[in-house]
């Protein structure tokens, strides 16, 4: 796991409660990576692209993305990430309440790596997050390449 310790998790989720529940369950799954949380799209994008600690400038990262954000649609962020050379290999996990087929297809078309629907039932929710944690523990995240 030592390799993955350095992978930081960027969580873009406007609902504080959801963010807290996601974090709790990720921790319960034994994932100890740093989680940086943003509640709106603008600051999240700024961090991703410009911040000194952001994934564009340093270190590998994994993005947990909610689609319903107050200032922009999550799909816009997804499109921006996947169309930028420095970030396009960064895995993006879309975690949202929307289970519309068309929307799911659109996210995969844009390059989303995993799409997870938030179940309302908490047990299922916790289960899903823990499984995501297991998934995160084995996932290979590419290092930043200067090309």
């Amino acid at each position: 796991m030592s390799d993955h310790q350095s992978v930081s998790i960027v969580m873009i989720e406007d609902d504080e409660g959801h963010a807290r529940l996601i974090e709790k369950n990720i921790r319960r799954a034994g994932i100890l990576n740093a989680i940086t949380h943003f509640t709106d799209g603008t600051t999240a994008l700024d961090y991703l692209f410009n911040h000194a600690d952001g994934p564009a400038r340093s270190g590998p990262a994994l993005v947990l993305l909610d689609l319903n954000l107050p200032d922009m649609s999550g799909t816009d962020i997804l499109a921006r990430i996947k169309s930028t050379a420095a970030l396009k290999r960064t895995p993006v996990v879309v975690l949202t309440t929307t289970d519309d087929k068309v929307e799911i297809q659109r996210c995969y078309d844009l390059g989303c790596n995993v799409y997870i629907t938030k179940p309302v039932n908490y047990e299922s929710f916790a289960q899903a997050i823990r499984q995501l944690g297991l998934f995160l523990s084995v996932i290979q995240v590419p290092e930043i390449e200067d090309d």
Partner: protein
Amino acid sequence: MMRRVLRVFGASDRAIGRLLITCMTVGFIALLAAGVAAVWTTVRNQSHTDMVNHTYTVKLAIAHTQTLIEQGETARRGFLLTGDGDYRHNHDIAASETWPQLARIARLTADNPVQRRNVAVLRPLVSDLFGHRVHTIALVAAGKSNDALRDFTAEKTARRMYHIRAVLKTMGDEETRLLALRDSEQRNTVRAFYGVLALAGLLLVLVAFLSIATVLRYTRDLGASRDQLRDFAGSLEDLVAARTVDLTRANEEVQRFAYIVSHDLRSPLVNVMGFTAELETATATISELIDRAEAEAPGIVTEDARLAAREDLPEAIGFIRTSTQKMDRLINAILKLSRQGRRVITPEPLDTAALAVTIRDSLQHLLDDRGAELIVEQPMVGIVNDRLAVEQIFSNLIENAVKYLDPKRPGRIVVRGRREGVRAVFEIEDNGRGIAASDHTRIFDLFRRSGTQDQPGEGIGLAHVRALAYRLGGTIDVSSELGRGSTFRVNLPLAYVEPKTKRSEREPA
């Protein structure tokens, strides 16, 4: 707009009808007048001819009388000169014929006071003359020729003959005058006849002209209004199309709204349920702590703390859980409804009877449990529509019928379908517990139910069925009597027609 045109039309129809009838009446009256005039003229003509004949008869009689008188005179003079018996004989014949002739004239001219007077003047003159003649002839016969001649001369000086001739001439003139009078009368009659004829002809021409003009105008109006109607029909179609677009847009908006709302409601619900679970875990931990504290140091555990940990907290969490679960179900129902509107309809020919039988088979165990029977009346009308949607409508209604049967009597559910014009009408009839009249509309609303709440359900089924029926271009209604049973009637097009407008792109929630 349409009604006004029709009203104007009706009114002008009546007016034109009245006008045409008036024209025809006037025409007939003109013809009748011409006929009456003709008859009248003929009758007048006849009587005139009779009168003229009469006049000529009278004139002839007068002339004859004069001739007879002259003949008698000539014969007498002949006899006077010659003493020839033939002359005398001739005189006698003429004399004997004169009186009847005079009587005839008197008879013929009985209606004319002038002639009567003339006849009255004539009679004594003739009588005197004839008396003298007889006397003269008797003198001649007695051989007293000289006496006879003297008498004759005396008589000539009396100028009786002149008088007679004058009177007869007056009589003849009188008749001539009458003839002229009658001729002018006759001319007047003919003139009047021609006048009436001309008037009638003029009227007929006028009426014909008026009728033709009216019919022409009516036809032109008819043509104009036909064009107008065609335009109306065109604009009506546009109107319907526009309305359909509006309706579709409104429907789409409602569905999008429902979709967004249901999704946005889900978000906080995730929190409520999530943290309730966290709370539960925490409660378990605290409860455990209380247990341990009770065992190890009972003094520090207050009654309040024990109650809070063991009863209040679990109870509160339980209520939160059931409520959130219910809310989740309701939100899912709204979501399902909104999805229904977004589904693509794929019409295909459907055997509705077979469809109903399939549903019956799938419900057979339930029907057996309740001791109910379901009759599918064959044949049912076939339609072209979305299989899944029609199946859902039927199964929802049939399931409801089974669900709300009256336990007091054996259940009997009948499914039937028939064609009504370009529509198919399906009925699902049951003898169940029925629905109060006040709830007939309400039951189709989301989350609304009717009667005793002794059956599980959220009040979604009928709302769903109605949304489906609308989506398929149909309608649904119910007739029911509490305690007697209900009949749900679904009216669908024989063939589904896609609304003209293209449904807008789906919007993500």
